[in-house]
């Protein structure tokens, strides 16, 4: 608060103390505490510091689970045998199904002979850059699919980041041979092979 810890900012940089409530150290903080913060200052801080950034980062895993939760509910409702993968069962997936890609796809679907019949990956992305990075994951899974003799790879996508088609959605559609769904039409997934033969086979 006294600007003594880090010293003066070099060149064109600004100190993090250069914000409304700490501009003059504790006296400005005291002023805001006593008189309140004008709405314009409050909104400027939101504009400057980001809207919901901290909470979004803190809950990113929960947000990522939204698509997976919807898929799991679909499989449960239709008695499709599946394993939802995680850090706890990577070794089991490799040993049981010879799926060696790490990390394993989000879901592995199997039949009554314990043979893997499809793998499914869920990915949400709200900006094109993130989607492009995540699209590379499907390329790796595609390699694994080919290695296992053409095992169907299914993508379930969410978020507007995937609307960038040239280097994001297009390659995913390619890697999945068109088996790409979103939460809004995921029920249609059950009409694609191998699902029709798997519906109702889970206990």
């Amino acid at each position: 608060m006294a600007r003594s810890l880090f010293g003066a900012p070099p060149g064109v940089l600004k100190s993090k103390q250069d914000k409304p409530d700490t501009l003059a150290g504790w006296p400005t903080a005291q002023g805001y505490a006593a008189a309140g913060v004008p709405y314009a200052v409050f909104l400027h801080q939101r504009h400057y510091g980001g809207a919901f950034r901290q909470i979004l980062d803190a809950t990113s895993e929960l947000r990522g689970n939204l698509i997976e939760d919807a898929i799991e509910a679909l499989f449960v409702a239709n008695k499709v045998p599946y394993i939802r993968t995680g850090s706890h069962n990577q070794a089991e997936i490799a040993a049981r199904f010879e799926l060696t890609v790490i990390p394993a796809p989000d879901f592995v679907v199997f039949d009554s002979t314990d043979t893997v019949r499809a793998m499914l990956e869920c990915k949400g992305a709200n900006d094109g850059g993130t989607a492009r990075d995540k699209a590379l994951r499907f390329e790796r899974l595609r390699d694994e699919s080919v290695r296992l003799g053409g095992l169907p790879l299914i993508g379930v996508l969410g978020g507007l980041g995937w609307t960038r088609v040239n280097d994001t959605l297009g390659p995913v559609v390619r890697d999945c041979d068109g088996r790409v769904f979103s939460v809004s039409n995921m029920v249609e997934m059950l009409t694609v092979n191998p699902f029709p033969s798997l519906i109702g086979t889970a206990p």
Partner: protein
Amino acid sequence: MARVEDTINLIVGATTWDERVNRMRQIPARHGTNEHAGIHAKVAKLLYVPHLAPDFAYIHGADFYELPHFQLAYNKAAAATAEFTKVSVADLEAAIQAEPSVLLALRVITGLTKGEFAASSVLVAEPLGLKPLTSNKVDSMERRAPQLQPPRPGRRPRP
């Protein structure tokens, strides 16, 4: 060699998902690799983009980030420092010792993240021969639920 438009129309015209998959798999046989990316992009735009929906309108709740938790920490910090007028090292030390969660309000005033605040403590602690804070320690102090304190008489209630 098939025309790009014909292949796209063929895929778009598939009546079942399996038919679509089969037609997608014919692309390498019908076209040179230089045309593949364009076909995939066009098919993606026509058949898949319409199903994508924004998911940025909602957020999960997290008690630590909600107003009540912060408000309690703020109230405690304001009370312990007489509305931030008693802010000597001894005052702040006593305030934090008495109620570690006030660190949340004090740290946010500095505008530093937990990690940055912990790293800053290294700069101060080392010359004094003290143990610096870790990011986890900052987190545990701030997440500790502050004791609810009734508003003080004569003060306007905080929203």
